[in-house]
């Protein structure tokens, strides 16, 4: 029977979302407050996956991101910040994608290929963006004026993206 059942199929997206959440937790472990917020975020992601609540997953991702930014105001390294920031987005992305698959596909249908394709796409974007950002951050000598330039550059890119 395809109706009236509540069967669920463990999906790759669910596991990858949890992994991304754990990666964020490892990235923010240097700050106790950020770790607490991160734990709450990871818990929200897991709870959202269990209860099929997209809003909970999105909230968890936002909390993970907030934990990362909070950790960045402390002694966190650039690598940790990048891992935390992108991990938080990927956790929410894959979590909501998996829930969408749950909703649209019958539990009997194997959807690993679609999920992995989506995960690879998001992963590639994360690696490329983080790589470029990290390279810029590391190659530019530290200094007040250069920091401002970097911020301005970010603002320009943001304004361009927000134009629509």
């Amino acid at each position, binding site marked *: *029977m*395809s*109706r*009236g059942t509540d069967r669920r199929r463990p999906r790759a997206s669910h596991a990858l979302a949890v992994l991304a959440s754990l990666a964020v937790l490892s990235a923010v472990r240097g700050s106790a407050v950020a770790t607490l917020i991160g734990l709450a975020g990871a818990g929200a992601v897991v709870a959202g996956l269990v209860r099929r609540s*997209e*809003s909970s997953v*999105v909230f968890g*991702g936002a909390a993970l*991101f907030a934990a*990362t*930014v909070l950790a*960045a*105001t402390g002694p*966190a*390294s*650039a690598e940790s*910040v*990048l891992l*935390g*920031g*992108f991990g*938080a*987005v990927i956790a*929410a*992305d894959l979590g*909501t*994608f998996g829930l*969408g*698959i749950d*909703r*649209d*596909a*019958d539990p*009997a*249908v194997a*959807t690993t*290929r*679609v999920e992995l*394709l*989506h995960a690879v*796409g*998001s992963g590639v*974007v*994360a690696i*490329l*963006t*983080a790589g470029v*950002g*990290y390279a810029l*951050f590391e190659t530019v000598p530290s200094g007040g004026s250069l*920091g401002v330039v*970097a*911020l301005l550059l*970010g*603002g320009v*890119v*943001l304004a361009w*993206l*927000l134009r*629509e």
Partner: protein
Amino acid sequence: MTEPATVGAGLDRGEGRLERTGRWDGIHGLALAATVVAILVGKPVAILAGLAGVGFAAYSRFAEAPEPELAVERHVSDTDPAPGETVRVTLTVENESGATLPDLRFADDVPAGLEVVDGTARHTTALRPGKRASIAYEFAAVRGRHEFDSLTVVTRDVSGASRRVARRTTDRSTVVCRPAYEDSSVPLGDLATRLTGSQPVSATGEGLAFHSLREYRAGDPLGSVDWNRFAKDGELATRRFDQPRTVKVVLLVDARAAAYVTAGDGRPAVDACAHAAGALVGGLAEADCHVGLAALSPRECWLPPASGRSHRERLLDALTTHDAFGWRPPAATRGDTNDADGFGRLLTQIPGDAQVVVCSPVVDDRPVEAARALDARGHDVTVASPDATADDSAYRRLAATERRVRLDECRRAGIAVVEWTDGGRRPGPSAGATAGAETRVATDGGDARWR
């Protein structure tokens, strides 16, 4: 990152649209928030977290959901099943786009009324060029002509930011399920045609059964004189005999949208009415009545009373396959609302010497109004009413009470009422089931299915 409620609703066959899913809405805010924090606390490293917002915002604008070129094959195992038989449908989709479809979701548009009992009518996959994906499902056959002729397809770009929704026309596969209607009848009135027939009515003439005596009138045939009475009393009297006549009966089936109510098993009351009318066709035809068929519905159906085997088959075929008695309720009518259910037209079509049997669940006052209007015009009217009510909630108990009140109103008006005990209940595992009806497989292709 959440998406709007539903897509695909309201698309006609051959239509499609490209739309944003909205799953990346707000991603820019992450970059903005990180930048603001970095400026406020003077920590340039914090801006690196915002890069995620920048990168994924660009990613969401990078690609557009692909336009799929699909070859669709559908195979139906049985095109003429009996009610309750399971029919297997196999649907194969081949990607002829020349490019990989990273996220392809499709669902066969299962016709209204059919319930998938095994397998699934939808699929989600990634499909490389030239590759195929198949689904197979089984449904339980029910009365009607069911056309499989479309497919709902949703493609997304790899980021999921946009999707293309389309209802694609496919080769048509038709399944016709003809129930075996039981023969049944209802008590009829005295209204008859002037044609000699076999129905005993109040008319007198040259029959065999004795009716009454009356005073002899000049010209009465000597064979009809009651000589025994003459020998006893010395008075001439003429014997009168019943004269069977031909009776015309029009079966008026309530097929308005209001009659598509269900009692929780997913079976609309119209189906019960169609089965009742089908049983009456057989029963009345066996009694040599001339039987006609009409639908109280915006979808016109009118077969004038006639007799004969071919006419009987035409009536049963109409009850099985005519759109007026289909599983999808009629759309709301626009413009002329004075005759929204076609009753005004029917008044001009129903012969004056025809009796009318109204097959209706009587879920509102309209069938009562129609029956009383027909009665006022001189037709003998009978209401045959399948009970579509239930008693599992206060609201439904109220509806059942209202129905009984309406039927009593008919009786008070002198209209015969027959509480129709149903045949033709939906076969298969859902018969009598009430749970799970709200999760029935969508039967209108594209409606409220994909998100």
